[in-house]
């Protein structure tokens, strides 16, 4: 395969994985190839990244694909290692497991992965070679990373490595936390390196294109709220503050751009003195910024837990922008949860306390109708002409009464009312979902990922 073919194939794979690489950017990358040293792999990687990856959330996918298309080694062409240079050198293909684990602990303690020590890469390759192979049919083989992890089980080395690092220092303190963090990072680095090498071997056996299609995860702002894993959730939470900040910045800009306010009589008359009492220039008062009040009504049942979790975080990150934010949660009974989010409290803790203490569930199955009626009865005065009402939920009411009239009245009293539904549009009205009925009363938006949520709030402002 020539360099041009490989380049074109790589660009194509990036586009397939959802990275928007324009023709011009592809050409820039090709021009960059002409001025750099192609034998420097990291330079090549960064050159591609600089010209084609213009958003940090695309970078992990890019790195995975880069490792596949420009692998650090190929099994067939590997130069035989020079042996015998060091008498104590471990023979990675033959040594017993205990010694291999010693070696791994040594590498992890020395931050070998982070500093790019070649011995680390070599160790990873040897381990995949030795433990990762599983025969599959005649003359074929499969590669797995879990079997490598099972054999070496780096997690169980932790206690012993911590002893080594702390060397008699007091346990449980800051030093241990810091060391633990460092070692966990190194272990993750080892797992990633093994997974990457496994992918490379699979690609060698069955072709790059085939595996490229299945390995790249969507960027974090495209992850479906309803399919979030625990690891993703942490990453999502990290998106909250930048998102809130971005939206806040956006809101203030919009405020200032709005038309000027009423005539400032005093300033106009004062200014007219310089033109002999004739008012030539009018001065206006700056417009009072419109600070809307926000009422959030949130389905907290298990089916949409991650979604409401995330939106609540965002709501409270945004509270500086609104004069007043009140939040209510419900499963089949509604309760105010504003008190759990007092300023300065830690949001993650607040959500934990909320799920434990708030009185929102009688039978544990969502009942929108009963919740809306309860809300109108108990907290109806929360909604006024300056309020934006935001309802979050999947509109799956377990075949209970919808209480459409109550909702219509609530929506009518509010300045705006919106409904965010984390389900894809195609699934609305299937099963017990009554999305369209509610949609006729309150404007309903599909909101499946951070990108859609951001788009919605920008329109709202």
């Amino acid at each position, binding site marked *: 395969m020539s360099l041009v073919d490989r380049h074109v194939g790589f660009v194509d794979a990036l586009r397939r994985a959802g990275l928007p690489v324009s023709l011009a950017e592809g050409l820039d990358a090709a*021009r960059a190839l002409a001025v*750099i040293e192609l034998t420097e792999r990291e330079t090549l990687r960064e050159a591609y990244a*600089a010209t084609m990856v213009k958003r940090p959330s695309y970078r992990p996918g890019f790195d995975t694909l880069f490792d596949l298309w420009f692998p650090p080694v190929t099994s067939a062409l590997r130069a035989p290692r020079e042996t015998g240079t060091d008498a104590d050198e471990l023979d990675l293909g033959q040594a017993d497991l205990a010694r291999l684990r010693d070696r791994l602990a040594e590498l992890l303690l020395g931050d070998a992965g982070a500093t790019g020590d070649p011995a680390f890469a070599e160790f990873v390759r040897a381990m995949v070679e030795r433990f990762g192979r599983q025969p599959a049919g005649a003359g074929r083989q499969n590669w797995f990373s879990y079997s490598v992890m099972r054999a070496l089980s780096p997690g169980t080395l932790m206690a012993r490595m911590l002893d080594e690092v702390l060397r008699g220092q007091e346990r449980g303190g800051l030093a241990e936390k*810091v060391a633990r963090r460092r070692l966990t990072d190194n272990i993750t680095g080892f797992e990633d390196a093994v997974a990457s090498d496994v992918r490379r071997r699979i690609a060698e056996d069955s072709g790059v294109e085939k595996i490229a299609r299945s390995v790249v995860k969507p960027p974090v702002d495209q992850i479906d709220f309803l399919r979030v894993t625990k690891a993703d959730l942490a990453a999502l939470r990290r998106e909250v503050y930048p998102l809130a900040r971005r939206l806040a910045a956006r809101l203030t800009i919009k405020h200032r751009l709005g038309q000027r306010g009423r005539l400032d009589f005093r300033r106009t008359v004062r200014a007219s003195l310089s033109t002999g009492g004739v008012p030539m220039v009018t001065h206006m008062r700056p417009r009072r910024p419109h600070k809307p009040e926000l009422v959030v009504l949130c389905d907290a049942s298990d089916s949409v837990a991650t979604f409401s979790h995330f939106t609540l975080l965002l709501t409270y990150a945004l509270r500086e922008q609104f004069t007043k934010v009140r939040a209510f949660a419900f499963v089949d009974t509604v309760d105010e949860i504003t008190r759990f989010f007092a300023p300065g409290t830690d949001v993650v803790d607040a959500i934990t306390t909320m799920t434990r203490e708030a009185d929102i569930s009688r039978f544990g199955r969502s009942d929108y109708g009963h919740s809306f009626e309860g809300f109108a009865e108990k907290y109806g005065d929360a909604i006024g002409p300056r309020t934006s009402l935001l309802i979050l939920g999947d509109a799956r009411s377990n075949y209970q009464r919808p209480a459409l009239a109550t909702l219509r009245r609530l929506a009518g009293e509010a300045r705006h009312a919106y409904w965010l539904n984390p389900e894809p549009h195609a699934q609305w009205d299937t099963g017990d979902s009554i999305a369209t009925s509610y949609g006729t009363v309150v404007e309903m938006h599909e909101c499946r990922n951070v990108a859609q949520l951001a788009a919605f709030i920008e329109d709202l402002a």
Partner: protein
Amino acid sequence: MTSWFTSPADAGERLAAVGYLADDGIATSVFLAAALGKPLLAEGPAGVGKTQLAKVVAAATGAELIRLQCYEGLDEARALYEWNYKKQLLRIQASGDQGWAETHDDIFSEEFLLERPLLKAIRRTAPTVLLIDEIDKADVEVEGLLLEILSDYQVTIPELGTIVATRKPYVVLTSNATRELSEALKRRCLYLHLDYPSPERERDIVLAQVPGIEASLAEQLARTVATLRALELKKSPSIAETIDWAHTLLALGRTELDESTTTGTLGVVLKHASDQTRAIKELGLPAR
């Protein structure tokens, strides 16, 4: 046009010589921006050395730095050029009975043109680094204004015609990502995402920036800051704050970062009360 850097490695070395430790990504992007003649867009959280990057590129190559600080409401007259209309008025009054055509040609000439940073950078003949700082703070219209300059290195002034750069300036744009920049702008730039450094690199930065600090303390600092960043904080500590922390510890005469010292000086790196509470809880520090 003479080349700014000969290779990524060369870029890395020359930046290091002026006190900026570049990793592979930074060195490659800095080199490519010059080699391909494209602007470099550096994006990332506050305090990771985006603006500093432009400054050290200027210092390493002996070029002059021209800076355009963006803010809300920045317009053409502040960024590009402006006619000195007061002087034009004087000229018209002084001209007496001169004809209209003559005066018109006269008052739209070089003499009455006020150069702003962008035009200045385009017209300079000596090596120039143009820093367009915090582009995300400016309004969206400013991005449109920049497109002609960034892709063709030219400026069109209706009365004077198009001014093409005699020598392409080295352009660095920085952004804190408070808003998404337009695709058109991103497409014209090389993109460099500057993030918090690895503990190893941060240790080296602290050693380079804070003279007189012990290597073991720098290591401890870098590791602790990395641990803090892993917590879910409102605002993670920046490199600048790590360096402040190092200075603080030196001033206090500490040679080790133990629990009580950490609690006592946590305010240097964490500036939100809730972040401090969280760090104290998660790291098991003694309460103050």
